[in-house]
């Protein structure tokens, strides 16, 4: 695996790793690692650094919905323009083009169900080429971007062993 990919894999798992730690782990110097990360940010390979938060643990009762959207594609641009347009709403967390019975999968967050209902009826459904939507509310999360919401595994190894 080349160096760039190694750096990306490490950061994907832990964005808090310092360039210095990455340099030690990969036998490089710190300045070289910083330069590569800067280049990746500039090229928009690295889009940002976010934190995976278990909001449920704080008793926050926000709502997340996954909306299946059927869309009429348009000559030359296909689904791109409408997907980008949907993505501009700040309440939209992600937009993906799907294979199968519908076209776009849109993840939306809101304070409550009414919020999301409002987004669908006023914003999403009124877009010209949107032909129909099916909304699924998330009831409970178990794993997200590789991180399990379970209690972490306790280290049960003997504290000293041969």
């Amino acid at each position, binding site marked *: 695996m080349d160096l760039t990919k190694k750096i990306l894999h490490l950061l994907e798992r832990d964005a808090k790793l310092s360039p210095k730690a990455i340099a*030690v782990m990969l036998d490089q110097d710190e300045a070289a690692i910083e330069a590569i990360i800067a280049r990746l940010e500039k090229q928009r390979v690295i889009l940002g650094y976010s934190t995976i938060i278990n909001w449920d643990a704080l008793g926050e009762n926000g709502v997340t919905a996954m909306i299946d959207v059927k869309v009429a594609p348009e000559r030359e641009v296909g689904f791109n323009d409408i997907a980008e347009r949907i993505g501009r709403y700040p309440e939209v967390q992600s937009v993906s083009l799907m294979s199968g019975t519908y076209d776009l999968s849109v993840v939306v967050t809101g304070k409550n169900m009414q919020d999301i209902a409002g987004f669908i009826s006023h914003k999403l459904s009124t877009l010209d080429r949107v032909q129909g939507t099916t909304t699924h509310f998330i009831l409970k999360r178990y794993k997200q971007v590789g991180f399990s919401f379970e209690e972490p595994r306790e280290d049960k*190894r003997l*504290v000293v*062993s*041969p």
Partner: protein
Amino acid sequence: MNRFLSKTVQAIPPSGIRKFFDLVAQTEGVISLGVGEPDFATPWHITETACYSLEKGETMYTSNQGLPELREEIAAYQKRHIGVEYSPGDEILVTIGVSEAVDLAVRALLEPGDEVLVPEPSYVSYCPEVTLAYGTPVPLPTYHGDQYRLRPDVLEKYITPKSKILVLPYPSNPTGGIMNYDDLKALVDIIIKNDLIVISDEIYSELTYYGKHVSIASFPGMRDRTIVMNGFSKAFAMTGWRVGYACGHPEIIAAMTKIHQYMIMCAPIMGQKAAIEALRHGEEEMRRMVDSYNYRRKIILSGLAGIGLDCFEPQGAFYCFPSIAISGMNSEVFCEKLLHEEQVAVVPGNAFGSNGDGFIRCCYAASIGNIEQAIERMGHFLRRHAYD
């Protein structure tokens, strides 16, 4: 009741690790670099395979030598791992970890008084197992300056007419040292000339960080006088499953199997089923774990250098073995004080043989956060005690 106990057993000193373990277990808030096993749980697909086999009611004995499918997988694995071919029919025995395999081998081979050459510092079981088989363990000193490789001149110096077995425990627990192709080649003629049998404990052989492990069995003339031992504990994070194996000449394997069948019958079937899955589909996950150890190896080495502890770069296993000379303490005092004052557990080097004194074993199969914190605490400790 001592008068009833065998003199052989009484003469074996209790493990130095046991004593230290009790001390650590009584201390609160300890960060431990004292463990001897991976910090990963067994990869889920392996565990799940064992669960499924239990659900199907596969809870019976297996053949003494181990499940035929497992022996076939081991043969294929050894061929790609060390480049040596073994027949699954009569050259492979599945055991309860490498510890049992070593015990079987010394019992199958030794006459009372035969000598077994054991490089030190090394894993705690070899010498007691030899003693229990009425053999005489002969420690071969290895040195920090040689990165704990066994030197040919040292081997020659300790060979006597009674020498029968040489144990080659590389990559090494506790030092992390390895023997590369040239290091091993330098020993081959001496081994053959003196008609020695080699017990090659290769349990850490997948955990090497500069190229592939080389087995002494792969040298011309060595296959039939070497018993290669490996298992699933370290590479596949399966310590608690207790599955290992020995590969070697059919007559030696048959003799070992004779003892194994009377004392053990067979390794547990669920462990063997899990082991088959590990060899069939586990190598990618294993490589990920090895990469992760390698990252942490670099972090701990950089940390040790930063606090002034001299350590050669270990190229295998998941241990490093720094010198604590700057503290002016012996290993046991160092470890007890470090535990008491900073709540960091590392293992005294002399637990692995007297020439391990002046060193400590640090296991880096710990989280990066814990490694960094342990190093920081050791730094405080050294600032207080170095040269005092």
